[in-house]
């Protein structure tokens, strides 16, 4: 299974995402922001970082990148896409996911080992978890406060599209402790914390992040 990892000029976690794909048993494929060729991949990860510097609203420019002109229709057609941190911001800016990520409530960048509860195991990226499973993975962001209007929040709650929620501490002021959401079809997932940094207890707090990457491989096998 070939999983594309997109590199924007300011992407930082692409190596980590590629490593996570490899450890999960997939083949990482490098995708370049300036290239609209998805190289026939079976799924795509939009990793964390600062895509084009993000001096403007995070992800606001990336949305117009050549790679996104191919990725958006592919995602609408069912291609599994996981956006982590800056990737989540880009998915919101691209309207593949509702809501927006704003400045943390604390106004500080925050890096911490974050406990989460997996709320929906029906998506392409969470099916290897057990419903209600609690995990600890790193969180690191300056603009990770998920916001949406109440009607939208009610809708995604009703449809079970909140895929993970913060436990113990809400680190950035996200509405309803939301750490990650999916689209209605469950193939597109945005997540603020970083599962790619939790694939080996040697370098991460746990290996709790690995199931995100094995999930998509299982989903692809089932679909084929």
């Amino acid at each position, binding site marked *: 299974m070939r999983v594309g990892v997109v590199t924007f000029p300011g992407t930082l976690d692409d190596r980590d995402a590629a490593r996570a794909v490899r450890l999960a048993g997939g083949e990482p494929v490098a995708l370049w922001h300036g290239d609209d060729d998805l190289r026939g991949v079976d799924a795509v990860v939009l990793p964390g970082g*600062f895509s084009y*510097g993000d001096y403007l609203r995070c992800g606001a420019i990336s949305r117009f990148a050549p790679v996104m002109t191919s990725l958006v229709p592919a995602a609408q057609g069912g291609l599994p896409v996981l956006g982590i941190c800056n990737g989540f911001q880009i998915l919101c800016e691209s309207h593949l996911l509702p809501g927006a990520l704003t400045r943390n409530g604390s106004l500080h960048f925050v*890096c911490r080992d974050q406990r989460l509860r997996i709320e929906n195991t029906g998506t392409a990226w969470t099916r290897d978890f057990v419903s209600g499973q609690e995990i600890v993975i790193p969180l690191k962001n300056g603009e990770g406060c998920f916001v949406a209007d109440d009607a939208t929040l009610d809708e995604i709650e009703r449809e079970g599209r909140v895929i993970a929620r913060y436990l113990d501490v809400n680190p950035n002021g996200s509405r309803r402790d939301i750490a990650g959401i999916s689209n209605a079809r469950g193939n597109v997932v945005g997540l603020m914390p970083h599962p*790619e940094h939790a694939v080996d207890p*040697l*370098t991460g707090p746990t290996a709790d992040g690995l199931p995100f990457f094995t999930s998509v491989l299982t989903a692809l096998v089932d679909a084929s």
Partner: protein
Amino acid sequence: MTDTVQHAIDDPDHPQPYAELGLKPDEYARIREILGRRPTSSELAMYSVMWSEHCSYKSSKVHLRQFGEKKPETAALMVGIGENAGVVDIGDGWAVTFKVESHNHPSYVEPYQGAATGVGGIVRDIMSMGARPIAVMDPLRFGPLDAPDTKRVLPGVIAGVGGYGNCLGLPNIGGEVVFDETYLGNPLVNALCIGAMRHEDLHLASASGVGNLVVLYGARTGGDGIGGVSVLASETFDADGPAKRPSVQVGDPFMEKLLIEATLEVLHSGLVEGIQDLGGAGISCATSELASNGEGGMHVWLDRVLLRDASLSPEEILMSESQERMCAIVRPENLDAFMSLCRRWDVEAVVIGEVTDSGRLTVDWHGERIVDVPPRTVAHEGPVYERPYHRPSWQDALQAATPDTLPRPSTPDALRATLLDLVGAPNLASKSWVTSQYDRYVLGNTVLAQPEDSGMVRVDEVTGRGVAVSTDCNGRFAKLDPYAGAQLALAESYRNVAATGAEPLAVTNCLNFGSPEDPEVMWQFAEAARGLADGCLELGIPVTGGNVSFYNQTGDVAILPTPVVGVLGVIDNVERRTPMAWGSDGGVLYLLGDTRDEFGGSEWAHHVHRHLGGLPPRVDLPRERALGEVLISGSRSGLLAAAHDVSDGGVGQALVEMALRADSGARISIPVGVDPFVLLFSESAGRAVVVVAQGDEARLAEICTEQGLPMARIGDAMPQERTLQFDGLFAVSIDELRTVHEATLPAVLDA
């Protein structure tokens, strides 16, 4: 009108503002002597920035020579002092380079940008050796936590370090945060970067090959930072001096990220003959250094430099310290490929000159010659001062004012209260308010990060080979005895690296002092440099580079002498690193080393009594080496379940830090006949607390005996319990310790 070489010849007596540019009359006279005429205004600009204290090390050079003269024999050193950063062989064809630099004055003036560009500068230094930056660390010092100005400076510095480093994608794996009133008007913002490369990728800053091209790439040149080096970094802040504020540089971390990627690609594609970063003194520094390290000649068309502000004069362009710029020497046949890689990363590049064999650095501005100098006289043959120095008149009185008469806690309740008081003291309290603003995970190779004894990163994912780095300095010890204080900083850093199981290999330093024009400050500096050089020889690890920061003083009051020492160690497999705290299996706790009644410069004397006097703890470097052997061999053999350095705050603080990291309790028995106060709070050097599994005591005893290292059983880890208990004295719950330890910084900084 542009001041050309011809003008300088035609109008030899034209008055020049050399004093305003920071040059002394004799220095100006020497420039005239070198050139055989008055300098042009552009030449004056170049000499003034390059001969500033910050760039020329004119006051420190005669002392820094010891680092080379007393260099221990080691096979590990690939590149020593003098290049942008030293390079150390860590085995398997891997090399690492690391260096620490100061950005103190800019960070006081404009905390966010000062700190941010400090990180950016050191990262470019590492890149210019051909290495990929893999981690950063920041030793920081501020005025008292509760001082109003600290609340201005500290949050800005932390946000700047984080904002820049996080955006570059470099994990921040350690450093220090220290508070002392002498830093109130002179915060210290030191930045360290570590880079890794294969041996064959090593590059040096030299312009070789006549006809090769000089390419300036990265950000455009603007008006920021003009005079920053010579004016900001080299003169003390005077209450009634001129306002020098606009000259702090402004950073663009996204551009730096592009510059890293583009630089590594052109280096690895073999497109570069020589490379140099642009930091202090900008184009003046890069061209004169590249030329003097190469064939000896270079010609520059200065009007080709891409500008952010078209109105800049040639003098300003030469002096500008605009960030995120690099200079490469490229063969003409490789230029197209070089330019194409820069375009891929959206990095602007332009040929500004070529290598010549003229032996001169010549610069033209729209067809007119404005600079014609021997490059070595700019870059390497600046003034050297034998500054007068003498032992301060107050040194004897300071050393005589021992802490021996300070009232000590004697009852169990008083000991308990003292422990908690120190656990919450600003210097010993949790620094997570700071470190949680830094990304420690990016790149996925961070094995240990703060609050562990050293930061450790994996270099080779296949073999697990990695490096550990720690930075340390207790400026109070250095004030009491600068020679011993520098050695204690070295010893602590060495110990912290060994505690994680890594073998210390090399040293970098950032020597932060007051004004070198004060003979008493100069004595502190001379003593610290001598102590550090002697210490490195004794421990067998060479100094590979570093930085000196003078003029850290307000009025007559200098900062505590602060020779920050960074030690780098190698570990063949990071899987065997020793953590600082016990795990769920618990174990038996041993204190290694001797505890003496040593409180001079201690945190207890400082925090509880506001006292500074007496002598610092005794230095015993052979003992440090023996302890290091035990810590390293104990890691190799898998004997040590945990190890933690004993330093600031003593054994009490070390045990608290271990318990908090383990999030579980321990039962401590103070050996019979030992004064509990001394055992808990003395800061004797050469000690560590280690944890071994039950049944492994004999193995530990064996290696300690071999090294002549005293060991004493001091208790047991209790992984199922939530209390740190001192038998017969007192107990404190983990929750209470955590509350006290973690409340201090937020209580002030979030208020």
